[in-house]
């Protein structure tokens, strides 16, 4: 039944025409223009000549920009890892909750999406700043106990405007993107396999490592991809929460399109990021193909 459309090509063509057109006009065509710009050169403040030269890419591969790209990959990787480590138990807990609790837990995970990212980031700033909620609560506790034992006055923790804040903010924003695919994979998991494993003498850890993780691997891979890629291109979070050395590659790209007014170079940097993304997706599809062949 799933292959029915192959027998009805005209129907398929009619149904797919509008999304294809949409994709072509609003995605592929603009992308192609920007790709063209990446081989171009500014000829005036507002005009770009596409001359096929690779100067922008050569400049983008300078150690200065590669180091920033490397740092972005590191931030995104760290974010993904933390999301995975924290998200897995959460996804397991949701899977094994009663249906009623499950609905509430899923709602809690998705609730932040109802608020704009910019607003959430500003809210995070109010929480983290040196006179923010965390420091105020700590100061209250410290000074309360401190008066009894005669400790030094509270020194606010530096939580905002540093690399910690950037990774913290990215984890906060990306967390649902990790939990939801994990949950989807775990929910489909046949629980009798877990029971069988436990019955046949494997401990909880062995069952987790040898049964749960391999079976939920597709969920882990898609969770990692949908967390890693947006983190790699994060712009708002490092911009607002970051400190003096937190700029990520997207911040450099933004500056090329605005203050530096150098669209060709900005386009080259964007596409460098895009090539990396393609590479990540390629690895995923290779992995899933190998798994498919093995199965």
């Amino acid at each position, binding site marked *: 039944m799933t292959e029915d459309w192959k027998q009805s090509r005209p129907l398929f063509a009619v149904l797919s025409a509008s999304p294809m057109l949409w994709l072509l006009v609003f995605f592929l065509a603009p992308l192609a223009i920007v790709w063209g710009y990446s081989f171009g050169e500014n000829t005036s*403040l507002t005009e770009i000549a596409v001359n096929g030269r690779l100067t922008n890419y050569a400049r983008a591969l300078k150690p200065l920009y590669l180091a920033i790209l490397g740092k972005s990959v590191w931030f995104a990787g760290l974010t993904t890892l933390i999301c995975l480590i924290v998200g897995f138990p959460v996804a397991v807990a949701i899977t094994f909750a009663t249906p009623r609790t499950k609905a509430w837990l899923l709602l809690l995970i998705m609730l932040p999406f109802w608020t704009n990212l910019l607003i959430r980031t500003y809210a995070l700033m109010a929480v983290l700043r040196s006179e923010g909620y965390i420091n105020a609560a700590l100061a209250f506790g410290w000074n309360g106990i401190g008066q009894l034992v005669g400790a030094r006055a509270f020194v606010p923790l530096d939580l905002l405007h540093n690399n910690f804040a950037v990774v913290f903010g990215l984890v906060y924003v990306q967390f649902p993107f990790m939990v939801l695919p994990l949950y989807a994979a775990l929910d489909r998991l046949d629980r009798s396999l877990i029971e069988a494993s436990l019955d046949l003498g494997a401990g909880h850890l062995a069952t987790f490592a040898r049964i749960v993780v391999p079976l939920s691997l597709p969920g882990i891979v898609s969770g990692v991809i949908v967390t890693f890629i947006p983190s790699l291109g994060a712009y708002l979070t490092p911009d607002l929460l970051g*400190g003096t050395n937190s700029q990520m590659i997207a911040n450099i790209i933004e500056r090329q399109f*605005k*203050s530096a007014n150098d669209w060709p170079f900005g386009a080259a940097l964007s596409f460098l990021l895009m090539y990396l993304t393609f590479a990540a997706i390629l690895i995923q599809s290779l992995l899933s193909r190998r798994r498919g062949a093995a199965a």
Partner: protein
Amino acid sequence: MPDRRSLLAGLGAVAAGFSLTDCSTRAGVGANGEEARLNLYNWDTYTGRSTLTDFRAKTGIAVKMSLFGNNDELFARLRAGNPGFDVIVPSNEFVTRLRQSNMLMPIDHAKVPNFANLAAAFRDAPFDPGRRYSIPYTWLVLGLGYRKSKIDGVPDSWKWVFDSDRYAGRIGVFSEADDLIRLGAKYLGHSVRDVPPPVVRQVVAMLIRQKPFIKVFHHDEGQDLLAAGDIDLVVEYNGDIAQVMADDPDLDFVVPREGTLINSDCLCIPAGAPRPDNAHRFINFVLDAHVGAGISQTIRYPTPNAAALALMPAEYRDNRAIFPPANRMARSEYGDFEGMRHAQLVDEAVTEIMAA
């Protein structure tokens, strides 16, 4: 360059996106044959409390204001063609850039009789000889905003933000690439104009050395960071600091003794403006003495309008944050737009500082 609170600017940009495409509510046609509407593209907190409603009461023209956060945003927005703005408020260097790109319409001075209200010094400008394309709205200087109780005396040198660990961890520096390099050069004894590449290198080395002591490179929200207590010393515009000084007497502003960069925000009519006659009427209205005084009362930036200034209370006229002392102003200069090569050089220099 008031208050570029990114949040509000972001919301403004979104609002602009909706409002300009929304033409379902057509206004009536005025006596000049133009639809009784005006699209103003402005900075945030940059009009008087009742400026726009007063204009509507007087002329019947409804003003729809959209906000931008910085000049780059303005330029990027207009670059692909005017999306329907009638009046914009770029700074002096962007008047040059917009002019060079043929993106401005000449001002018909016959329609702006209130031009005579401007102080003589502002009736002409090197970046726009004869004021053919731009009418001065405010002028502004960069300086140091500080919290008096946390800083020893008056921090009247750029040294305290660019070249000293005395206020380590409490310093905020304005991240605008061009201005950062210029002020660094000014501290090193050069003009803010034509900073030669070796001096740019010197500034880069100095700021990389200084970085461990800088808490944050801000995007013109320095006054908020200062008011919130995140930092105690910040490079900011005088008007922004004057606005928060009104609420917090522990804050002050100083133009360092080396001098600084002066800017001027101007009213311009972008090429392709749908209602140029309304635009002229609006500009003339803003230059009126009483209207101008109403604006200055709210935005607390220095006004180039002599007739409006005469109506202002002494509290504004003698405010050292708004009008820095003459000897400091004498050492300060306007910046020029120095071409794309220079912009690229400066951007890469700042990328280097941030990445170090």
